[in-house]
């Protein structure tokens, strides 16, 4: 259950219960009497007198006993001479029947309501009924079961009301949170549901603003993607035509070395376009990355197998030391292009006939739970001063290693961005025996 919900609910409930207790206490500690019961007193008295007339004192006493049981009312019936006729409490009215009319309906000095009524009966006799409500909680007359039942009802009703109130207050917040979490996880279609949007309060405003914002982000990203796709198409179409034209000229006996130059440059351009598009996609992808759990070891096995094919042309071997499953939380597509770039880079620069080593180590969960991936080649390496710069886009290492390079200098830049997006680190270093080693650390999924 969401924490906010629990907090608000308990807050409300505690308030209701405290107010309830205070109310009950205030009733408990005031005398039970109030004006209203005395209205009934007159009819009660008539009933007692009627019983007296018809069935005598014993019947009147039974009525009085019943009254005492049900309402806690103590009473005594006198004749008009002031002689007690019926009642269990005649002794407590120590001052005897009070002559005269009604005494005020106010507690006497000991906090007790007393009342005295003179009433004529149907057969002409006059009786006096004196009553008093003892001071103190009326609940005393209730059984424990009734007491528990009352409180149960109070708790149930109050918790139901608090639950609904809390739901109404916290639901929009939870919905908003849910939508923003989904968007940050890459589901750009996520919106706050219309039920929240339709509210005519600040929550409704917030939900509408949020949805407008989400729509704008989605539009921006999709037009960005459309642009990438269009640019890609527009740039590649002429390149395709150039390639065809060059091939036609060649086929017809044009064996000018300049044609090879054109061919090579077309390929270089295509390579550059592909990489630039990847950068653009990584940037767009960072905002729309699809986060899921996947196994880096399996991914690397595929990349290594592909790299092996590429390496074979240069008589090199790719050696992959597996580590068993290495589950990482991230965007598989982005990480694939990152790791692919690092491995291909190694294949590209390693000296002919050498090995490329890919080593994966799942870090101990104690050490922050990072997996460590090392990709080493047996190439010329990179000058120490430039080890950081090689992760910058279009950076060219100033040594011979790059003279014949057809690379656009974007592979490692892409890898670096993707790894950072996954809260990992990427470092390059020169191996003692020569060659470059790229070390990538990525946090393992919890």
């Amino acid at each position: 259950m969401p924490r906010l919900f629990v907090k608000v609910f308990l807050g409300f409930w505690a308030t209701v219960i405290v107010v309830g207790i205070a109310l009950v206490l205030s009733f408990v500690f005031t005398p039970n009497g109030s004006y209203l019961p005395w209205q009934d007193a007159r009819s009660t008295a008539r009933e007692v007198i009627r019983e007296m007339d018809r069935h005598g004192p014993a019947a009147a006493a039974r009525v009085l006993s019943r009254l005492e049981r049900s309402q806690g009312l103590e009473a005594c019936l006198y004749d008009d001479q002031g002689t007690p006729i019926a009642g269990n409490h005649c002794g407590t009215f120590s001052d005897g029947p009070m002559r005269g009319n009604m005494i005020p309906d106010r507690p006497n000095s000991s906090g007790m309501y007393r009342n005295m009524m003179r009433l004529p009966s149907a057969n002409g006799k006059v009786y006096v009924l004196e009553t008093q409500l003892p001071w103190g909680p009326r609940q005393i007359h209730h059984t424990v079961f009734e007491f528990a039942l009352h409180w149960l009802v109070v708790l149930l009703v109050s918790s139901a009301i608090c639950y609904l109130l809390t739901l109404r207050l916290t639901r929009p917040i939870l919905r908003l949170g849910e939508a923003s979490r989904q968007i940050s996880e890459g589901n750009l279609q996520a919106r706050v549901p219309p039920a929240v949007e339709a509210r005519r309060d600040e929550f409704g405003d917030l939900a509408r603003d949020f949805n407008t914002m989400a729509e704008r982000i989605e539009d921006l990203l999709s037009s960005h993607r459309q642009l990438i796709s269009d640019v890609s198409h527009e740039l590649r179409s002429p390149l395709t035509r150039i390639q065809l034209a060059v091939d036609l000229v060649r086929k017809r006996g044009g064996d000018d070395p300049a044609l090879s130059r054109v061919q090579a440059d077309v390929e270089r351009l295509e390579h550059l376009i592909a990489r630039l598009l990847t950068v653009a996609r990584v940037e767009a992808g960072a905002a729309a990355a699809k986060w899921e759990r996947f196994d880096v070891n399996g991914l690397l096995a595929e990349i290594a197998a592909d790299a092996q094919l590429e390496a074979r042309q240069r008589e090199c071997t790719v050696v992959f030391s597996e580590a068993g499953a290495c589950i990482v939380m991230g965007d598989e597509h982005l990480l694939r292009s990152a790791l692919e770039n690092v491995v291909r880079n190694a294949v590209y620069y390693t000296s002919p006939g050498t090995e490329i080593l890919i080593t994966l180590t799942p870090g101990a969960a104690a050490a922050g739970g990072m997996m460590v991936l090392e990709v080493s080649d047996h190439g010329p390496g990179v000058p120490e001063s430039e080890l950081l710069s090689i992760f910058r886009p279009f950076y060219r290492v100033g040594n011979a290693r790059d003279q014949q390079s057809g690379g656009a200098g974007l592979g490692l830049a892409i890898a670096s961005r993707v790894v950072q997006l996954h809260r990992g680190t990427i470092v390059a270093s020169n191996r003692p025996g020569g060659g470059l080693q790229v070390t990538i650390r990525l946090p393992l999924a919890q």
Partner: protein
Amino acid sequence: MERILIIDDDTALCELLIERLQDDEFVTEAVHDGVRGLERARSGEHGLVVLDLMLPGLNGIEVLRQLRHTSDVPVLILTARDEDVERILGLEIGADDYLAKPFNPRELIARIRAILRRSLRASGEERPLKAGDLQLNPSTREAFLGQKPLPLTSVEFSLLETLLHEAGRTVSREHLTETVLGRELRPFDRVIDVHVSNLRRKLGNERIKTVRGTGYLLVARPAPR
């Protein structure tokens, strides 16, 4: 020689392609929009269709989808976009192979030849192949799973044929690409994997196992009695 149909809205490219393919003795026809392209492709006059995915009117994927309802003419898709999704979708719908623009014209011709070679091989007479409840008839290019006929595209048929020959043994991705697609496996080339997953879907029941980093393996099941 086989007639080839090119469906691409880039008219200049089409002119160059026709000229280039002519040098290799292919008779080529070019159409520049999807609707007309679909109409021509359905005519059955061509041995192969080269289809660009970005087309005005009806896009390439839709052309391919509708074409596959009625015809199993081999299709090679071209794409200038960088989206893997589109290529894979094209292969899943039933394209034989794809080529990314810009392409080397020699590569295009090599692929056209490979596809044509495979579809011509169909006429070669061979004994039926059997493994468990699977049966292939290379002469008629019909496949049966139990008693039920399996609707397979031409690529899928060749793929299953190759796997059946080696049933129970791992067949490498290189070998599959070479025998089925008639070309070398390139790095980061996933065409054969898409075809395998299409075939796997049609066969069901995990008959084709992936041997990670190596290739695929067909598990023969005994025929139900």
